[in-house]
């Protein structure tokens, strides 16, 4: 594990990113952009499912925002992995990093359950869980930089 993380840090691309003046902040900014799009669309979809937003029909809203959320998630994973790779060994030693990944996992399972279940009451409960989980991931992600 240690050697694997160490060799990730040694990749040419990652070593360039490590000391870069422009590239790293750009990757960081893309992570923030992705996270912003993801969390915003998740909150809007959840509010629609819960019934707080009623002015737009659920289908159109979901069709649009689910794409934004999935795209945002993909970009967040990619840019997050790049930042992780720069200091892989250190991040891997931080409980907070694993808490963040764990919460992402739970939020993913919650999404899976939501996609499979049809009962209205259940969908609302899962939307309620989602609206709490994703912003919590955001908060934990922000704290990572302060603990490292």
């Amino acid at each position, binding site marked *: 594990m240690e050697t694997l993380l160490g060799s990730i840090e040694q990749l040419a691309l990652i070593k360039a*990113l*490590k*000391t*870069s*003046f422009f590239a*790293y*902040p750009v990757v*960081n900014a893309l992570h923030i952009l992705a996270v912003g799009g993801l969390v915003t669309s998740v909150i809007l979809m959840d*509010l629609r499912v*819960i*019934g*707080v937003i009623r002015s737009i029909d659920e289908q159109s809203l979901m069709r649009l925002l689910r794409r934004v959320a999935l795209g945002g998630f993909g970009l967040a994973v990619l840019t997050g992995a790049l*930042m992780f790779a*720069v*200091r892989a060994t*250190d991040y891997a030693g931080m409980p907070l990093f694993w808490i963040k990944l764990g919460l992402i996992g739970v939020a993913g399972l919650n999404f899976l359950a939501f996609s499979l279940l049809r009962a209205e009451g259940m969908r609302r409960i899962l939307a*309620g869980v989602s*609206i*709490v*989980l994703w*912003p*919590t991931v955001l*908060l*934990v992600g922000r*704290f990572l*930089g*302060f*603990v*490292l």
Partner: protein
Amino acid sequence: MRRLRILLLAMALGAAMPVLPALAHHGWAWTEEELFELTGTVKSVFVGNPHATLDLEVEGVVWRVELAPPGPTVASGFTEETVKPGDEVVALGNRSLDPNEKRMKAVRVTVGGKAYDIYPTRVPAN
């Protein structure tokens, strides 16, 4: 009814925020006002994004010495090749307000008599 729902949601969000200790390591708000000097031997060094760090062993305890982002750190002359594990280093800077936290942010690092001013404007007599 609708207002109540929004209120309940806001409360749920607030309650979900994990009560994390205030570990603000950007800027200087988390450090003491006065300067502090730490002498130790290098355990590890990292000069890269998001910021450079130096781990110093002092009487068996490892201190985390924060430097600047890689740009200003390298501009001071300090690179990852400047020190190697076992070297003696003097770090001048501000330590954490929390006395139990073995952490400081250096304004100057001295290695073998040579000084590297990481934050030149914060080094006295500069």
